[in-house]
């Protein structure tokens, strides 16, 4: 056991740059650590674009494999996450183009389902109802605005990460998110503004 663990301190994870460098030399364990660190952001970005959990898992996996293959092009010293999310976003958009929109309406209907009676009995009923209304309105935004708002505000990415994931300039992210939020405010009325 390492000395810090003996002292009861958490062992800090190796620095990201070091993990990337090791992965570039073929260290799969180092790359697995990078995947674990970023899999939630990557999965959520894919889900924002493809809107299917099953597809999102496959696409995110494929994107991580492609990112590994492309590590030789990664510029050492630059942040890994925006670079990764650009690859993830590209993969998701390619998938969406290939899959078309055949089951879009089915997925949207699932999002719009009302909360179940069991959940409605929850003490946080009002909060849940507010969120349900917000999410239902979010699901009905125009696609580009929905993607920007979901990635930026629901997934919690930065403007730069959202721009990398969606493959658009930061200014475009800001504009689409601003429009989306305004549309939500108009849709949801005074009490949720």
């Amino acid at each position, binding site marked *: 056991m390492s000395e810090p663990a003996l002292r009861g301190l958490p062992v800090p994870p190796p620095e990201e740059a070091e993990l990337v460098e090791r992965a570039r030399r073929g260290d799969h364990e180092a790359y697995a650590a990078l995947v674990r660190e970023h899999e939630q952001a990557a999965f959520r970005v894919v889900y924002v674009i493809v809107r299917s959990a099953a597809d999102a898992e496959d696409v995110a996996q494929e994107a991580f494999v492609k990112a590994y*293959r492309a590590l030789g092009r990664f510029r050492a010293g630059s942040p890994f996450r925006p670079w990764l999310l650009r690859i993830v976003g590209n993969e998701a958009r390619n998938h969406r183009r290939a899959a078309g929109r055949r089951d879009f309406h089915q997925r949207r209907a699932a*999002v719009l389902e009302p909360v179940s009676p069991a959940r409605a009995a929850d003490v946080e009923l009002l909060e849940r109802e507010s969120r349900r209304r917000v999410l239902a309105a979010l699901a009905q935004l125009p696609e580009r605005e929905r993607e920007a708002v979901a990635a930026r505000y629901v997934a919690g990415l930065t403007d730069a990460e959202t721009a990398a994931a969606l493959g658009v300039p930061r200014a475009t992210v800001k504009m689409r998110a601003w429009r989306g939020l305004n549309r939500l405010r108009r849709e949801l009325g005074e009490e949720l503004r």
Partner: protein
Amino acid sequence: MIERHLRESAEAWFPETPSLAPAVVGRLPALPDPPARRLPKRALVVAFAALALAGTAVAASVLDLVPGVRIQRVDELPELGYVVPPFGRETTAEDARSGLPFELVLPEALGDPDRVLVDRGLDGEPVVTAVYGGGVSPQLILTQWPADRVLFDKLLRPDTRTEYVDVDGAEGIWIEGGDHAVFYLGRSGRERRVGGYVTGNVLVWHRGFVSYRLEIGASRERALELAGSLRPAR
């Protein structure tokens, strides 16, 4: 409020994140692909610009601070006449303001503009230009647009000075001295760049998702003062 609900809705909106690492690692090749030999992106941009501008020597300097405005240093400007860019159809500030995806602002100290013009960028987003002072030599031209794409392509000779400036809290670039060419890539930009020489000094800056370009035959201090006095148009 809505932002808070959105932030707190991540667990409801997104399915649970599956553990991806085991499946990913099982599919990895032994090593990443070897890096391909590629020209630096900037070299490609400069090369394309040089080709597009037919004989204009482009120096290796591109300023990209302000979204929607691309500034390049060149040794010589291309042969162009002095042309006011076609900023679109003439309208009123009131009409221009309605339906905009951003708040139209104008310099408070100057009163109403002599002309207001509205155009559309290549992506259909509105571009609003306010002109103060009539005739062929306006005293001030203020253009504002959502900076989705490059709208102005500027070429500066070596004797034109540039300076990073603070425009009421926003980052900007002040361009002064010498002739510099401007290519306005409005609705017609897809077919052919339309451009001319700009004899005034220019301040460009970006705030929120909107970029601003102020052309003025006055000092940097006056330009910054006017830029700092922009208020919502009435």
